[in-house]
């Protein structure tokens, strides 16, 4: 009985080609997703810079901030969801980690701005810092994530800044030191009291 070895090899090449097509399609869509996240991130960076500038310009005269805060919250949330999804589905992708680092810096900047606004004006924004870990299988972090997502949807003024404790970023490490976050007590949330609340407490 004859074996058509040539055919076995041709079929092998076709199969490898089909797998290569599948891998290329997957990479193509992964690149598109990363590009989309980068685009949101760039827009976010501009919006934060614009908000900072607007605040600097107007802070001496009034607390008028316009309607940019709500949009900023939406953008931050959208990016958070997309980065979180990409982390789970584009495992090992360096670009996702880079985006996450950049996103963390943007969050810190926005947090500082929100804090300033709260100190000077009667702001509705309630900033909440959330530290989680990806180093081990942290079920409690996932649970906490669901709770915060739920809260964020219920209370639009709640602005949650989530940080991966294990992300190697000097600005984030400074935050961890300032708020004395212990890696054995993760997940951890830090709530920033608004000026109104502090006054209310004092009285």
């Amino acid at each position, binding site marked *: *009985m*004859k074996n058509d070895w040539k055919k076995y090899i041709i*079929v092998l090449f076709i199969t490898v080609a089909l*797998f290569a*097509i599948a891998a290329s399609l*997957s990479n193509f869509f*992964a690149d598109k997703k990363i590009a989309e996240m980068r685009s949101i991130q760039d827009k976010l960076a501009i919006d934060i810079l614009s908000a900072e500038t607007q605040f600097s310009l107007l802070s001496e005269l009034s607390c008028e901030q316009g309607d940019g805060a709500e949009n900023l919250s939406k953008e931050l949330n959208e990016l958070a969801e997309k980065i979180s999804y990409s982390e789970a589905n584009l495992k090992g992708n360096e670009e996702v980690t880079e985006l996450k680092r950049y996103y963390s810096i943007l969050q810190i900047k926005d947090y500082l701005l929100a804090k300033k606004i709260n100190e000077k004006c009667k702001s509705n924004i309630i900033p909440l810092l959330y530290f989680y870990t990806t180093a081990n299988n942290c*079920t409690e972090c*996932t*649970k906490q994530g669901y709770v915060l997502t739920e809260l964020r949807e219920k209370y639009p003024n709640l602005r949650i800044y989530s940080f991966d404790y294990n992300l190697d970023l000097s600005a984030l490490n400074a935050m961890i030191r300032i708020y004395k976050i212990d890696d054995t007590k993760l997940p951890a949330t830090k709530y920033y009291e608004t000026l109104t609340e502090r006054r209310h407490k004092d009285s």
Partner: protein
Amino acid sequence: MSVLLVIFYIISFLAVYVQVFFLVTFLENRKKINIRSTNITLDVYPTVTIIVPCYNEEKAVMLTVDSLLELDYPKDKLNIIVVDDGSKDNTWDVLQKYSNNSQVVLLQKENGGKHTALNLGIENSSTEFVGCLDSDSSVHKEALKRIMTFFLNEETMAVAPSIVVRDPKTLIQYAQRAEYDMSHYNKKMLAFLQGIHVTPGPFSIFRKRVFDEIGPYRKAHHTEDQEIALRMHKHGLKIDHCPDAYVYTSSPSSIPKLYKQRLRWIYGFIKNATDYKDMMFRPQYGTIGMFTLPSGFISVSGVVLLMLFTFSQIYSFLSRKLLQVKAVGVSSMFGNSFSFDPFFINTRAFLFISIILYILVVAALINGRRMIHGRKIFSWDILLFLTIFSVIAPFWVLKAIWNALTGKEASWTEERDYSFKQVTP
């Protein structure tokens, strides 16, 4: 990358390889596939004996024998031997209708299994060709002549027909109709490659000397039709497939009956392939050793591993949902407004590989249907087949593997339902 994902990729690669192999074979040979819609005439009509083994088939045996008597074949060249394998119902009484028919010989014996009934028929035949027809099947009246044209090639020792599901009524039967159409395609491609691993009970025809050379049927784990094909390959005997020799068969009408039938088939394959494992990866046995048997094992192990992979995905999804419910309550799963963002569509490679595999399977199904019925149809039963078999096939495969490992033999059980309306393709 998880271990299961790596296994998924390996199994998918092999599964895609098998489908591409068939597709390339189809493209090479498609012009050789001849579907005859008109009556044909043979120059010579060789003598043929058709053996009908039956056990408790009082409801169906008349349909089977009558269809044989209606075959367009000279009556003096066609003998029918009906063997009652110790039926406990009225099969023998029903068969007496044919006691005065010169074409029909009735034999009765103690129950000993299908292979013993077939062997008794072979012993009592003296024709050049011998075939069998399960008593739950009936034949198209041109089927025998069409098959005999394949024996014009002196090297051809056996020819398998195309089995069509008779008068489907239930969803399970419609799903099987699509599956059978795909199996015609697979069988024809294997025939081109000389790698057919089964000469089905319904109407496979052999040169009588096959049995003289390699011996009679064996019990073969209740799948004697698989064993005889493997034994023929071992002796270098060629098996072909006649795509336009239609045989109509009753098919299981419910999931439990289908489960029992497939359990027997898969168990039989595993045991027979194990009995003939010395042919595996041996180039001297051609396609059967290098392709058919390995791809059979790939299918069996692939179904199980894909089920494990699917279950792990479902488990992981449900765990996440349970955690969400624990954290924020059931209402959180329904309360949020729905918004669609294509960003969240999974675009990992395994999704595209699964799509490629499904496209190849659907292409096989459509090619099979076109080959047999002469038209290209994408109908709902294809989706039904893909859905039902994807879900339930792993269970009978797992059970068959378990039975094979523990030595628990599958048996003939009530798998069929009878319907008496003949369907002409």
